[in-house]
Each structure stands twice: as C-alpha cells, then as structure tokens.
C-alpha cells in the first residue's frame, strides 16, 4: 500500500521568512546555518532572506533551498542544497526539521525526497553530507541511505566553547540507485511524483472531518 506522508518539499519563498526566522531560537537551526555565535539577529535574518527565493529565475544556481511543508502544521523544516558543482555534478545537503518532528518518520521522508531531487531532478553524480559526530540521530538516518562515511574531521567545529568532530558522508549515484530500488519495495508512495499527486489531491479535496 502506498504511504501518504502528508509532508511535501517545495522551493523556499519570501513568504516563509517569518516562520524560518522564528526557528533561530533552536540551536539545531543555528548549526544548520553554520552560524558564528557573535552574529547579531539582524545578520542572521539577512542570511535567511538571502536563502529564501534567491533561486527564482536563476538558470544555474549554486544553492537551492527547499521548505518541508506539513499538510497539518505548515512549514516544519528547511533543506539546503549548496556548493553545487555543475561540472563535478556534486552538491552538499543540509537538513533541518523542527524539534517536534525530528524523531518522526517525516524527517526521513524529507531526506529521501531531497536525495531524489538531487539525483533525479538536478542530475547529480554525488551528494556530500557533513554532520556533527555527536548528532547520532542525523548520521544514522544518513547511513541508512547507503551513504558512506568518508571523512572523520577531528576537532573541526567550535560551538559555544566546545570543539566537535564532524563526519563527512558521500552518496554516489550508484548508492542512490541501490537505495531507490530498495526503498521502492518497502515505501511506495513517498517518491517525488507520488508527492506531487498527493499534494494535488489534498488541494482539490477539502480535508474530511476526523
């Protein structure tokens, strides 16, 4: 049976500004922004403004930002595809989802969809993922995707007076093909095409009473 995840990814827009700015109280979001803690709220806001809608009309962006939208709760996360190398066909992915759904299946589905977007829509050959070593929740999801831990960057990032290790993961197109095949048999209905169909359906039919 096809899953109905009721969560979608879409291009980030200026209209998302207030929601995304409200996430800056979450330390996980500040890490997502790779922020320097000395930055002022105004500077953080400027960075967010730069991320939202910056790719509109751009034929060859080196960064794409996608909002994770929940049918019930509205925007619940942000996915960034940055450092796009069009000749290397590679990019870096970062994900952020709000705390209340971080443990849920929705985060994993969003991650799967952004991978599909990178490989199937952008034609990437390789996706890079960097994650704090202490963030086991994130790197376990990454490892389940078939990404290989390629780098251990010791004492690489300083946050709040502490120095942390980072892991660098790489997912090649061949790894992705394997994942897609494996995923297809278990989780029908979460691919991008199904997502688009589900969203259309949701828009067309008013939500039924519980």
């Amino acid at each position, binding site marked *: 049976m096809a899953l109905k995840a009721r969560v979608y990814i879409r291009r980030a827009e200026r209209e998302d500004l207030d929601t995304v700015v409200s996430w800056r109280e979450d330390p996980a979001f500040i890490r997502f922004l790779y922020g320097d803690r000395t930055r002022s709220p105004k500077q953080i806001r400027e960075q967010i403004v730069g991320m939202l809608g910056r790719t509109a009309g751009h034929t060859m962006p080196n960064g794409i930002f996608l909002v994770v939208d929940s049918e019930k709760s509205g925007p619940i996360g942000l996915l960034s595809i940055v450092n796009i190398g*069009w000749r290397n066909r590679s990019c870096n992915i970062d994900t952020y989802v709000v705390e209340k759904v971080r443990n849920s299946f929705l985060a994993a589905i969003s991650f799967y969809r952004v991978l599909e977007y990178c490989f199937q829509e952008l*034609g990437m050959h390789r996706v890079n993922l960097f994650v704090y070593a202490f963030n086991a929740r994130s790197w376990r999801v990454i490892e389940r995707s078939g990404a290989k831990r390629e780098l251990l960057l010791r004492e690489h990032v300083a946050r709040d007076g502490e120095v942390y290790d980072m892991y660098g993961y790489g997912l090649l197109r061949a790894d992705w093909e394997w994942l897609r095949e494996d995923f297809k048999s278990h989780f029908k209905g979460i691919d991008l095409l199904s997502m688009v169909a589900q969203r259309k359906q949701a828009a067309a039919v008013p939500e039924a009473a519980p």
Partner: protein
Amino acid sequence: MTDEPRFTLRRTERLDLDTIIEWLDDPAFLAFLHGDPTRAPKQLRQHLAAMLAYAAAPMMSGGGFYIIDSDRHGPVGLASLQSIGWRNQNCEFDLCLTEPARAQGLDTACLHGVIGYCFDDLNLHRVSRPVPAPDSEAVLRMEGTGAKREAVLRRHGLRDGTRVDMYLYGLLRSEYRRPAAADRGD
C-alpha cells in the same frame, strides 16, 4: 602519450583581442561572429571587447566564445558554446578556424578538441551543432565523430545571400568516436 598536437579550449581574455581582430580579415570569421562588413573597425573592436568580457565571465556561465588553443600551433580559431544547460548537461556549439589552420588540415583535430572539452572538462552529456547542408566536408567531419543528423532546418541559414538548409547534428557522450590519439593530460 602522443606526438599529435593537442587542441583544447580556453576562455577568451583581453590579450586575445588583437589576435581576433586580425582574424576578422577572413570573411569566414566575420560571418561566424555575425559581423557586418559595413561596421567601422572601431565599432567592431568595441563589439569584440564586450563579447570577450562576456566570455571571460565565470566559468559556469550559459556559454560564450572560447579560443581554440594548441600546445604546438597556439590560437587557431574560435569556438562558441551556446545555451549550456547545466541541469540537462547539453549545449550547442560551433567553431571557426583561421585560414592557415584550415590550410594545414586541422579542422578534424579542432572539432575533436571542442567536443572533448564539452565532454571531458564540462562533463556534458550531449552536444549539438548546426552544419550548413552544402558544406559537405563539415557534414562528413561531424558524422565521423559519431554524431547523428537529427533534424533538417529548412532554409535556416544565410550563406552569401542564399538561404540554405542546415543539418542539426546531435552527439551523445556514449556515442562519441574519440580519435585514437585523444590522450589528454598525463
């Protein structure tokens, strides 16, 4: 390794301006650059300077003009890569060689230089090129690379005041017949 001269593309720069202006004495070049014979030399120079500035834009642009350069012969012509689609990994190209380069029979080697640059440096998946139907040598050269004639664009080009058909050739990376000596790098 090979003793054959190696042709590759490089982005145009200000230092190339005088060289390209010299090439404009050749009507084939003037036509390639869409030059108008009534243009004053100063206007042409300004046009070229603007064109070179565009071509020297960051490498990930949508296309532009490139110098076809050889380790043995130096600059031998211009290539234009247009409509580079980075997501689709394709582009349309054309090239024009100097009269001495044509006389030395460098056409085929330069054609491979341009195609090799598209596939091996830009990592494109497909290239296409319109070729005037009456130019039977150019048609043969394109077919020699493995390119397929995918469309006939009727009366699409203007050559010496006459409307001519153009053949649109498409070449996929997997179909590219590389020359035996296409050994780049070490």
